[in-house]
């Protein structure tokens, strides 16, 4: 069957059940409720003064009923410094557990060492918002028997609510925790900030293990994870590499190309009617995206515009803008650098939020719905404004859906910043390899060679043209790019599906097919 973008989607996948094709970005929300039923959270009881402490991570896993076919979940707040996920999978493999479904909120290059366990049948399925490095390559080459599912941050919460992801064991690393499992990422030697993606795991997993390298006296405050959801607590020597957990102060790029794109994007934003008193704003940590914040910050000061809230993945740059009084508050589902942790801990206007409040469409209103402006990156953009942030030019899985489609769907003005080509690889092209975010939710694509406005927004195009900005049709830009790079050959794929790209409402927006071996 074909979905609303005309992409062929299988009706059924063995071991995963029936699939629903993507119908349109807001199609499933209009009813006011979700068709699927929600599963109840687990039913638990604890005797007074019973100890939750375990000697080792292995002890905790042994107590948590490890079994074949189980689903194990993790959060990715430790980014590329994570030392817990790999350790836990090794233990499960040593215990001879097979057929595990790995449900980590995202996967980074720190998780490359689990590749052997994908090959030997320990792990047979993956649900994640992002996959990179060796794992992404191997998955595209067909290492797993079942397709991986790429969901958005908001979509993951829905997947847990509906039981599409049924977590048997959640192993949640924290930079500080107490003996009852109250846990935070906002202080301690390995502080990483918000634990926003871990909350849903703690509420719904059958067994919850908190792992920390910093056991503090009871009670651990502020508790991001609360004791009434936690079964076991483990103190380990290290939860990971702090230098990689805290990726350091987020610096504005010096790349002239990124700066040029960012400057144009900022001009487009300022010329739009979304840049106004009280606007809300989200911007990523990547090169050009963060640089947009630099120019917006300057313009806010110059034009004396004050914003309402900053959302999302939060950088120290956001914290600076909060401290300068440019924004009223920050809602933080994930912190990108070390400096953010102390702000989260000490500033009442810097508020940690769980992923459901951040981006799940199926509740009484997530915060992405309140966004005025979001700036996002892209691996590829096509002439229908569809964006790929998951597969690279060689077909490997090497990116993250993250909050891309969530914020694009919610924001009044969604701006995608990307070069029109990288090296000799076209970025703006006729058709993307994989659609993650549908074009109907993208308003503007800003490249170094001009600004393309979605034809759905003629009034926006007019505003940008009146501001003297270099607006051009996206087809014209794609042709210009093709003239420079030449026509790129399509990635050769087998029929076999190795990945499903789930839209935030649970429908399937695209599939990832196995890359043909040369």
């Amino acid at each position: 069957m074909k979905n609303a973008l005309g992409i062929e989607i299988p009706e059924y996948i063995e071991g995963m059940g029936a699939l629903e094709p993507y119908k349109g970005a807001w199609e499933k929300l209009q009813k006011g409720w979700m068709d699927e039923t929600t599963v109840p959270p687990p039913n638990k009881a604890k005797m007074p003064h019973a100890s939750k402490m375990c000697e080792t991570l292995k002890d905790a896993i042994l107590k948590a009923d490890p079994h074949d076919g189980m689903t194990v979940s993790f959060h990715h707040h430790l980014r590329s410094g994570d030392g817990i996920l790999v350790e836990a999978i090794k233990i499960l493999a040593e215990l001879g557990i097979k057929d595990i479904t790995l449900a980590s909120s995202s996967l980074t290059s720190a998780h490359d060492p689990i590749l052997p366990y994908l090959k030997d049948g320990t792990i047979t399925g993956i649900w994640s918002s992002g996959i990179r490095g060796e794992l992404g390559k191997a998955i595209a080459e067909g290492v797993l028997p079942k397709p991986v599912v790429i969901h958005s941050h908001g979509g993951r919460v829905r997947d847990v609510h509906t039981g599409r992801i049924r977590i048997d064991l959640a192993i949640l690393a924290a930079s500080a925790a107490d003996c009852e499992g109250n846990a935070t990422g906002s202080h301690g030697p390995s502080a990483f900030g918000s634990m926003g993606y871990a909350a849903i795991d703690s509420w719904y997993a059958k067994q919850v293990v908190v792992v920390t390298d910093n056991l503090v006296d009871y009670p651990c405050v502020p508790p991001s994870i609360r004791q009434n959801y936690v079964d076991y607590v483990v103190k380990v020597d290290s939860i990971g590499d702090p230098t990689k957990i805290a990726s350091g102060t987020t610096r504005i790029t010096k790349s002239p190309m990124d700066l040029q794109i960012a400057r144009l994007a900022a001009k487009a934003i300022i010329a739009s009617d979304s840049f106004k008193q009280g606007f809300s704003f989200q911007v990523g940590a990547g090169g050009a995206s963060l640089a947009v914040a630099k120019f917006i910050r300057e313009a806010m000061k110059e034009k004396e515009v004050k914003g309402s809230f900053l959302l999302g993945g939060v950088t120290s740059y956001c914290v600076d803008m909060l401290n300068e009084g440019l924004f009223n508050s920050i809602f933080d589902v994930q912190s990108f650098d070390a400096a953010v942790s102390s702000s989260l801990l000490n500033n009442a206007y810097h508020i940690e939020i769980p992923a459901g409040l951040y981006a799940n469409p199926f509740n009484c209103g997530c915060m992405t719905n309140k966004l005025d402006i979001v700036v996002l990156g892209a691996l590829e953009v096509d002439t229908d404004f569809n964006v790929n942030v998951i597969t690279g030019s060689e077909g490997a899985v090497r990116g993250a859906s993250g909050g891309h489609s969530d914020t694009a769907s919610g924001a009044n003005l969604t701006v995608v910043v990307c070069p029109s080509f990288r090296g000799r690889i076209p970025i703006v092209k006729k058709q993307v390899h994989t659609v993650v975010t549908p074009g109907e939710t993208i308003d503007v694509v800003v490249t170094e060679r001009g600004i393309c406005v979605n034809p759905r927004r003629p009034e926006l195009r007019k505003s940008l043209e009146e501001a003297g900005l270099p607006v051009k049709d996206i087809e014209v830009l794609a042709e210009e790019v093709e003239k420079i790079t030449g026509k790129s050959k399509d990635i050769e794929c087998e029929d076999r599906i190795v990945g499903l790209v789930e839209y935030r409402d649970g429908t399937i927006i695209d599939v990832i097919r196995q890359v043909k071996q040369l």
Partner: protein
Amino acid sequence: MGNMSQHERKFKRRSMLYIPGNNPGMLQQGAVYGADGVLLDLEDAVALNQKDAARILVRHMLQNLDYSGCEVTVRINHLDTPFGRKDLEEMVPLQPDALRLPKVETVESLQETLKIIEQIEDEHGLPHDQMKVHAMIETALGVQNVYEIAGCSPRIDAISIGGQDLAADMQLVKSNDGIGIDYARKQIVMAAKARRIDVFDTVYVDVDDEEGLRDVTEYIKKLGFTGKAVINPRQVEIVNSVFTPTEAEIRKAVRVYKAFERNKKEGIGVFAVDGKMVDAPVVQRAIRVLEMADIELDTL
């Protein structure tokens, strides 16, 4: 061509971005940074063992790449080097908007180069009046001869000061304040103004010092320079913004020009705008501001 106004010319000339001729990535992207012109460099930015590669690459780029919206100038090697002659032979037939000649010191040597250019153009059946020539003044002798150099051919469309080489030639100690080349800057500007041609300032080498670049650009704008060469794309926006009139300046210029048009009909040559006397030179300056702001006079 002397005495050409901004309007008659195809391009503004606030910023000219140097691009090393042997760097394909930068050559490919040169036009996207908002610079009014690109300076494809075969000379100092290219190592001796890369000269051939740079010449071949720039040749291909000129033949295949669209620099539309950007004035394209190629800086060739001096004819005293083993590369200069070959550079001319390869570049002249491609007729970029202009050639930039380094270390021009005397009218005689310049005339000799211009003659070779014409010979090559003749061999290819090309006219002599299309491609312009920019003379770089980079030595004390060049500074002393600049008025003659600037006027020796209608082909000389602009002159520029090369600060680094000049400082070396003058045996100046390194300093950031530009005092040592200040006299030369003023002398070169005066020669250009007397000959009614454009004049470009030298590069600012500390690419991370944005404030320093802004200060020096504001200074050379006051001296009368048309624009400034830059060595990093990040410098373009700063130079452009200094040379772009502010909103207040534009509004003032509009008032002056409109008052001038009104009074002209009544035969009045001197009048007042905002309580200040306006006469012909003030009107000329207002027209210049409007040109820099891309405002067509007949639309006012």
